[in-house]
């Protein structure tokens, strides 16, 4: 009896000792040391999409703030962000510089669908984390074929499933008219929507029309949609066409229940040019706290963000949602690094990234970041907001997984 106890105790002790060393043992891939973690990023600081450059700058400022307060697990983050001007050929060059010359531990937040497409295969061949890509295409969450690539924001298909779900719950006998841009983006949204409706798609969808991004207007499509007798309109268009569609619907007196994709729910670029009174009642999905929305201004989360902006990005535009986006993404990255602890290998970065369940301050209440070994879509929830002629007003529950 006594001997058994001793043996068990000994075994327990050894086990504890072993697992103890396993935890304490430091494991590094290139790009990580006792003092530093090197992260790479490519952003369009120049060129047609340079407005998104604000995201990279915000991430940089956030990591600097983290470094000033001691870093992550005692290590400083060295964030190397390069410019590709939204040109995929340049993205390839810059990413190769980061991977082969700077030897970063991982890349985070590379922006845009074409730039990420250009490096997708390369990153997976090199077994280099292409973490939290800043694009909404659905193809980034494919851990079976691309285990080194992970998305971030709600993907297009996930977002349109929210519209479908809302429709099934509130208006199950709707007659739906759809207008979509004839490319991968439009088809991505369409697929999610039809999947979300399931078997009912056949009976509910009465008209599907397309336009080319090179078309001057979509007036004839709008007239045709009205003539089809549809009482619900799913508007899968980019900003210029979204504004045209809203305006034209008002002109021809068509008043369907109008769902507008997140891509085009910008107040400045779409709702105002379309005529703010024309868009009253339109629904769209949101997942970040809009810094212009006064209801957040007294919350501690907003104040924390504001404090960060004032101290670390004093020249940043406080109305720009991109600053919220970059802030939130940087927090996600820091969480992954924290979880990775002392095992800073590329494999562990991906393993930890696929094991997140958290809330971030500037996400809408109820919207979370959740991943799993076969779920590479971190943010999948969103809330509908209705345009009241002046601003978007959140309504109803939070949708999504």
């Amino acid at each position, binding site marked *: 009896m006594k001997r058994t106890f001793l043996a068990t105790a000994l075994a327990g002790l050894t086990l504890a000792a072993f697992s103890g060393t396993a935890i304490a043992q430091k494991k590094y891939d290139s790009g990580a040391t006792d003092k530093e973690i090197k992260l790479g990023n490519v952003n369009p*600081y120049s060129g*047609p999409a340079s407005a998104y450059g604000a995201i990279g700058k915000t991430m940089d400022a956030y990591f600097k703030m983290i470094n000033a307060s001691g870093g992550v697990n005692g290590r400083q983050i060295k964030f190397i962000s390069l410019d590709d001007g939204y*040109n995929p050929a340049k993205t390839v060059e810059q990413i190769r510089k980061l991977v*082969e010359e700077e030897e970063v531990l991982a890349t985070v937040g590379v922006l845009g669908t074409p730039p990420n497409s250009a490096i*997708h295969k390369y990153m997976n061949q090199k077994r280099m984390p292409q973490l939290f890509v800043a694009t909404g295409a659905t193809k980034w969450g494919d851990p079976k074929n691309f285990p080194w690539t992970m998305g971030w924001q709600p993907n297009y298909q996930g977002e349109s499933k929210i519209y479908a779900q809302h429709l099934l719950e509130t208006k199950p006998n709707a007659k739906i008219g759809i207008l979509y841009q004839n490319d991968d983006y439009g088809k991505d949204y369409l697929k999610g929507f039809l999947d979300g409706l399931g078997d009912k798609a056949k009976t509910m969808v009465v008209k599907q029309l397309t336009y080319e991004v090179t078309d001057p207007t979509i007036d004839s499509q709008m007239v045709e949609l009205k003539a089809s007798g549809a009482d619900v309109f799913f508007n899968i268009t980019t900003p210029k066409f979204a504004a045209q569609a809203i305006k034209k619907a008002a002109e021809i007196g068509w008043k369907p229940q109008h769902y507008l994709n997140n891509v085009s729910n910008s107040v400045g670029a779409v709702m105002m040019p379309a005529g703010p009174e024309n868009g009253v009642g339109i629904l769209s999905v949101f997942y970040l706290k809009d810094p212009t929305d006064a209801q957040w201004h007294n919350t501690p989360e907003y104040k924390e963000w504001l404090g960060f902006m004032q101290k670390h990005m004093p020249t940043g535009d406080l109305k720009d949602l991109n600053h919220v986006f970059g802030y939130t993404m940087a927090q996600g990255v820091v969480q992954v690094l924290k979880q990775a602890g002392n095992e800073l290998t590329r494999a562990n970065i991906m393993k930890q990234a696929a094991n997140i369940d958290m809330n971030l301050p500037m996400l809408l209440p109820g919207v979370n970041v959740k991943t799993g070994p076969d779920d590479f879509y971190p943010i999948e929830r969103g809330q509908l907001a209705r345009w009241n002629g002046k601003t978007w007003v959140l309504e109803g529950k939070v949708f999504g997984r």
Partner: protein
Amino acid sequence: MNASNKKLVWIGGLVLLAVLCVLPFLVKNFRVFQFNMVMIYAIAILGLNILTGYNGQISLGHGAFYAIGAYGAAILMDGAGVPYWATLPFAAVLCFVFGFLMGFPALRLGGHYLALATFALALAVPQMLKYKKIEHWTGGVQGIVLSKPEPPFELSILGQPLSADRWLYFYTLFVLLIMFLIAWRLLRGRVGRALVAIRDHPIAASAMGINLPVFKSITFGVSAAFTGVAGGLSASVVAFVSPDSFTSFLSITLLVGVVVGGLASIPGAIAGAIFIQYVPNVADEISKSAPWAIYGTFLILLMYLMPSGAAGLVSKIWSRLRPASTSATSSPEGKLS
């Protein structure tokens, strides 16, 4: 003395060749990739220089030919399984035809009007590439992802293996030498003189019996073919093509390369290529807020310091040093003989 000069040139050439052969094994693959891009841009700039520098026709649309060459090669590799080395002649012919056709309106348009017409081409091509009817070839907005060609044999120099990038380096270098040789043969003879004559005085040129329409159209075709070959090479080196890779800004970048390198200069193309490859990177490192302002400053400074491009600067320095160097080399030779 003439003979020894020739010998010097030969020795210098061989040393240069040896350096060029060893160079990719001294640096990382990523640097080799950048060298490859420099060589590709040099070919494209050379093509544009034939048109703009020698023939005086301004094109703001050569990015379009670069794109057509790249897509032509990419579609052949991806869709038809043609080996990468066989795609270049096709890219050249394709772009020659497009360039030749573009040359016709160019006959009626001069100077700024031609620049605008070609700029329209640069604006249109990226959008055309997204066109629905050809999407199953071009891949639409997503473009085409390609595989890098593997080296045909294994080799190791200085402990560094012959990687895909290094193999592409030699392949690109080979193409570069051929294209430069073609340009050299073309521009140093009758054809070159005819082109310059058309540029400097078209009426006098036609009075001398030069067929203006034929020469101008063919020049446009040849120039487009050079740029198309560069585009075709870039498809292999970058291993990805998409409409966003070839925006109208590429055309302007190529023109910048021509001017920085030096109008009507063949070796200038390399200096121009180095500029358009590396200066944006330097600008990005200096400022993330306004990289193009930095780029612009570099450009203005360069134009101020060397108004006739890098080639102009070199020949200026050369002509200043020359009297000194001839006397320096002649005196020991005199003693020897």
